């Protein structure tokens, strides 16, 4: 009886648009996730999001509600010399190839987030960071140069090769 009263009362009450919108958002994100392994462009969009290499800040920003915990195989390596020295033959690849390590998500976190920023940038010298994300055979690689801005002024981030090293394998 009470439940009947509840139902009839609720039917007369205003439509719950908040409930519908929240459900629609969950469905939209789930659709995006389902499309990720099926459509390479979707996975590529997320990889560029992880590399802070989306075509614009707005393109990157609208993706923020999409959970990304431990998504994709994200690797990074930190170098104290630019890769151009290897390309020019001034240094052997062995001399500038440190260890690649995996990061859980957003591999750029190794130089933007918390203690990672301290570990990578405390020297006050230029640092180069290579970042690579792979998912089901698709790989995107980015290179970042972090140069000191001057004493006490922190660093300036330069994208050495933001898009042109993207590849599918």
């Amino acid at each position, binding site marked *: 009886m*009470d*439940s009947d009263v*509840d139902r009839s*009362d*609720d039917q007369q*009450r*205003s439509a*719950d648009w*908040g*409930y519908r919108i*929240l*459900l629609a*958002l*969950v469905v939209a*994100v*789930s659709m995006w*996730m*389902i499309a*990720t*392994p099926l459509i390479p462009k979707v996975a590529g969009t997320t990889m560029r999001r992880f590399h*802070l290499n989306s075509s614009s*800040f707005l393109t*990157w*920003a609208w993706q*923020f*509600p*999409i*959970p*990304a*915990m*431990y*998504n*994709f*195989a994200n690797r990074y390596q930190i170098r104290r010399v630019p890769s151009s020295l290897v390309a020019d033959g001034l240094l052997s690849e062995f001399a500038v190839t440190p260890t690649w*390590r*995996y990061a*859980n*998500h*957003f591999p*750029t*976190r190794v*130089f*933007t*987030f*918390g*203690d990672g*920023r*301290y570990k990578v*940038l*405390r020297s006050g010298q230029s640092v180069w960071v290579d970042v690579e994300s*792979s*998912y*089901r055979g698709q790989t995107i690689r980015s290179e970042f140069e*972090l140069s000191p*801005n001057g004493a006490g*002024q*922190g*660093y*300036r*981030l330069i994208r050495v090769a933001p898009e042109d090293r993207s590849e599918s394998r």
Partner: protein
Amino acid sequence: VATVATAPAIDRIRWVHRIAIAGLLLSLLYKHRFFRSAARMYVEIPIADDFFPVFFQSAYTAIAIFISIVILCVINFFMDNRRWQIALSFGTLIGISLLCLHQATYNDATFTTMWWSSLWGLWLVWRRGIDSEQVLVEKAAFLSRVIVSMILFAGAVGKWTSEYWSGEVLHDIYFVDRNFWLFSEVRQRFTADAIREIATTYSRFVIVTETVAGVGLWCLPTRIAATTGIVILVSIALMSNFLLFSVMGCLLGILASGWFVTRRS
């Protein structure tokens, strides 16, 4: 005439709301030491990056927003006035949205889970007084498990790749040198080859658990879903990284709403 003593009815929505706010505060404050030291790094070592608008590069922006969110949540916890609850919840949602876009905090999953939880919290207080208590608690519990299912599913899909299935990624992140009770214990007891095998099993277990829970949690009966979801989230933190209680805290808070659903009489 015989009288039957009945327990005083509790305001279930008030408790659901308070527990959800407590979950948000757990997420915010659990790793406060980390956040405090990180804030110092952001002030001492700023990174100029044209990709982010200046507002989203400033360390002081992130610090001010973080402190504001803590204050809004504390006031919201004690607030009973619906209009104030809506205003405080809206402010919290805006603040967390900004942190999700800030250079210093974009990558922290804590703010992603908090964003979904605070959106849920805003909807809850908005409907307070419009829906009956029974209907609102039922809808809140359903939405909470739908959100948690979606988050687990997203975690699973991102791991459906050979590097995770082989255990390579989690071996490097966790088993090689992570200072955590489980991984330290494994390193002490097993050879390198055995550890690599254990990492593969561990990784596959994570993928299967997240996939099954992501696909199925939302359609379980209310109380079973709430309990199962809470057990899974707590297990993830206990078995991989205690700091993940920061990511999970707000989700635990909204999942608890399932325990407040009673059978319609």
